[in-house]
């Protein structure tokens, strides 16, 4: 008997409370959560060993629905909690779920330092280009020229390139996927969870309610169509002339380094120091 996708998801959801969920119809966050569940299932990780650490915002609410150890932290600080958990117990698989405002604005400092110290945490950055839960204000991922509640005449600032940021800061693994390209996203996520060190996966997910409606994407379908036509595999993206790229953005794996995680290095050094002193 084969297990269907729905049955897998059913196994990993909490059944004692909290449905229906908070997400709008057409939101991509549910696709991310489904992909996360399938990835964990595919890797065969025991539920007890998985710790989901989430920030604040729509993405932060995902943690409550899944039957793992879940921590819903303060705004932008998910990676700091995750660092503490991983250092305290390296056996746990720590996965952070953050939004773009969470990871790049208020938590930007934690993001670059988590990448620099290469702590063994998987960071999923759900980028919907907007602060959704607070009502559609500009985030550091809001594209220049688009309209938001706090940029009613058009965003003047340039948006962050999350991939370049994480790569530059030294992350072990950096990738980008979208909720439209689900199979590809699953492959990227499995890698992001499986690998040691700091792994950052940016996921482009649409917010029709707060971003799309103000920016000429009237329905969720319009937003998915935008993702479909603009997300291009990195190999193909590199072949396009820079002048002709327009709104197109690359997806796939950008960085694959092979550095050991901080917790691994710490416990190794600790064992050496203790051995040198004749302790077990």
């Amino acid at each position, binding site marked *: 008997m084969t297990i269907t996708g729905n049955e897998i998801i059913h196994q990993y959801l909490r059944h004692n409370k909290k449905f229906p969920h908070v997400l709008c119809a057409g939101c991509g966050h549910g696709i991310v959560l489904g992909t996360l569940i399938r990835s964990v299932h595919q890797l065969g990780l025991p539920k007890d060993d998985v710790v989901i650490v989430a920030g604040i915002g729509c993405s932060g609410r995902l943690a409550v629905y899944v039957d793992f*150890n*879940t921590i819903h932290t303060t705004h932008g*600080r998910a990676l*700091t909690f995750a*660092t*503490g*958990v991983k250092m*305290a117990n390296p056996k746990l698989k720590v996965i952070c779920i953050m939004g773009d405002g969470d990871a790049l604005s208020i938590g930007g400092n934690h993001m670059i330092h988590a990448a620099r110290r290469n702590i063994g945490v998987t960071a999923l950055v759900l980028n919907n280009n907007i602060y959704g839960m607070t009502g559609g204000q500009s985030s550091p991922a809001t594209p220049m020229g688009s309209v938001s509640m706090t940029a009613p005449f058009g965003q003047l600032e340039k948006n962050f390139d999350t991939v370049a940021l994480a790569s530059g800061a030294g992350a072990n693994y950096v990738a980008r996927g979208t909720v439209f390209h689900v199979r590809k996203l699953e492959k990227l996520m499995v890698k992001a969870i499986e690998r040691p060190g700091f792994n950052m996966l940016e996921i482009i997910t649409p917010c029709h309610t707060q971003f799309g409606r103000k920016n000429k994407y009237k329905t969720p379908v319009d937003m998915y169509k935008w993702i479909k036509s603009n997300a291009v595999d990195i190999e193909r993206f590199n072949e396009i002339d820079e002048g002709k790229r327009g709104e197109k953005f690359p997806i796939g794996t950008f960085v694959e380094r092979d550095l050991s995680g901080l917790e691994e290095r*710490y416990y190794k050094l600790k064992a050496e120091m203790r051995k040198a002193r004749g302790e077990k």
Partner: protein
Amino acid sequence: MPRRKKHKEIFAQGNEAVVEGALMAGCSFYGGYPITPSSEIMEIMANRLPLTEDGVFIQLEDEIASMGAVIGASLAGRKAMTATSGPGFSLKQENLGYACMAEAPLVLVNVMRGGPSTGLPTSPAQGDVQQARWGTHGDHPIIVLSASDVQECLEMSITAFNMAEKYRTPVILLIDEITAHTREKIKIPHPNEYEVVSRIVPSMPPEWYKPFEETVRGVAPMPPLGSGYRFHVTGLTHDVNGFPTSRPDEVVDLMERLHRKIDQFFYDIQLYEELQTDDAEVVVIAYGSVARSAEYAVLQAREAGVKAGLLKLKTLFPYPRRATEKILGQAGRLVVPEMNMGQMSREVKRVACGRASIRTINRIDGQIIAPSEILKVIMQG
């Protein structure tokens, strides 16, 4: 009689004693960010923790991150601490509130220096007393302890961990720059001379476990992450399972339990020492390094024939009301010296309700309050 083993004695500063106490209490995680005058705590931890059996030391990118990491480690089952000073203490407040809400035991040491802002980084002050009580937003219960000398730093550090574990709450240990940097001889107690309390872990099957359940003590057992008890932790107002709620009855249940778990153990938490208060007509109420000046002043006043006494506060919050009430019954005059504009004296005045004449002595120039200054006020009659 078997001969008692002699105590190990060390010559140490307050910051060192805090570390000694923490390690004796079972601290196995330190996450910090350097700041004067608390940095020695971090430096010594960096030397000591990696050599202990399971100790983890990590330097974070800022005080916000260090507080987050300490909470993460606490949820993962560790006895965890961090230390900071003035400006860093302000940054800790955000996640301190989270720790209150999520009931994560931890110890936060604040070595007080002159403020506000960068203020007097290398000078002592006691200006963070009310911030320690009310610094993080929203109604929240908190335990704030203090220490007046190096020996007490060690003892209160152990006490801070014990209270944090017992009540599943963050505990703030407030010391000042003088206590932190004074070097003196202290005794290291034998392991059978002090108590070490650890959080209660659940023994019921995971499906019965409710992480924020109402219990007689108001404190639910707390398992480390990854031990089979999977539950949700959030800073949102939550129900007994940890799931977010805005149902008024569940909100009230949570808020009342959070306060009650501290309130109902007032007598256990409120620590203080009395010196010659039995017949005192004038009582000095002091804490931290100022209490040492006060002690000297009281003894000098006694020599001069004035019936003076000292109430030394070791717990600042919840404020030791009963100890103050007792004194109010007999002493007509209270003297409250502090290295601030008058923060603890607000509590004293609140409890006294006009039943005694209260004189405050306040210094805000980064200098210690000398015994002579306190003696002068005692003798003024």
